[in-house]
């Protein structure tokens, strides 16, 4: 079990989703909303291009928090996020976080997922078994 202390930064998770990642995520998750997979549709509804699934980025946030706690999927007890900026394929996503508190064997971690200055997930809070 990983030792987590308040104030510690968790290891950064860096992922660059390729052009077809949203297609694979759609297949894996069952969410085929065309704004994620069809550039013509996305542009027709006013988006710059296809955008990443918010829940995919939440999946990366869950992965970063779980790996910070040692990697056992049972470690992640709660994850709460707000989706803000839109995520783009073919752009690096950096998930970073800081341990806010550790109490009764549970650590609360503040997490952010961003592409450059664009915070796609903010005010995220993960609770893991420390």
């Amino acid at each position, binding site marked *: 079990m990983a030792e987590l202390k308040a104030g510690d930064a968790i290891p950064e998770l860096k992922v660059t989703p390729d052009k077809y990642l949203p297609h694979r995520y759609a297949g894996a998750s069952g969410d085929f909303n065309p704004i994620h997979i069809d550039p013509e549709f996305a542009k027709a509804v006013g988006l710059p291009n296809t955008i990443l699934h918010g829940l995919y980025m939440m999946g990366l946030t869950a992965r970063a928090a779980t790996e910070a706690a040692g990697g056992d999927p049972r470690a992640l007890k709660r*994850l709460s996020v707000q989706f803000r900026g839109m995520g783009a394929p073919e752009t690096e996503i950096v998930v970073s976080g800081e341990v806010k508190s550790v109490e009764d064997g549970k650590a609360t971690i503040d997490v952010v997922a961003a592409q450059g200055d664009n915070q796609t997930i903010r005010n995220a809070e993960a609770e893991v078994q420390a």
Partner: protein
Amino acid sequence: MAIKTEAIGKEWPATTYEVGKEKIGEYARVVGLDNPVHFDREAATAAGYRDVVAPPMFCVVYSAPALGPAMFDDEVAMNFAAMVHGGQEFVWGEPACSGDEITTKAKCLQIYEKDGKGFYVFETVSTNQDGAEVVRGTWTNIVRGV
């Protein structure tokens, strides 16, 4: 325009999803997880799981089907063209493993207006074949210009 709030408290019929080993692996690969407990039965049982275990966020796969009818309900009357997924929370209980039969119920927790936006908050509660709670999700959708 006043927002419609009649659907607060409304519940929708439960959906059931049988968790499969290959579907777990497919999801795990997409989010880049390489822990063998998500792919290999022996590794999963050696780690104390009943079978290959789903990553926590795999919950979207088995709980989302219950939410569909709630989001498209005429009484909820959400304007999809102006909707974004604003926030999400999951609280996990018993792990979901291959072979589990998971039942999910959806309920409308809140509908309210704030700063010209409509907030539609739904809850899903998923339980396994033994009646143990697997995950509880709170889904917040935001509609601009209500």
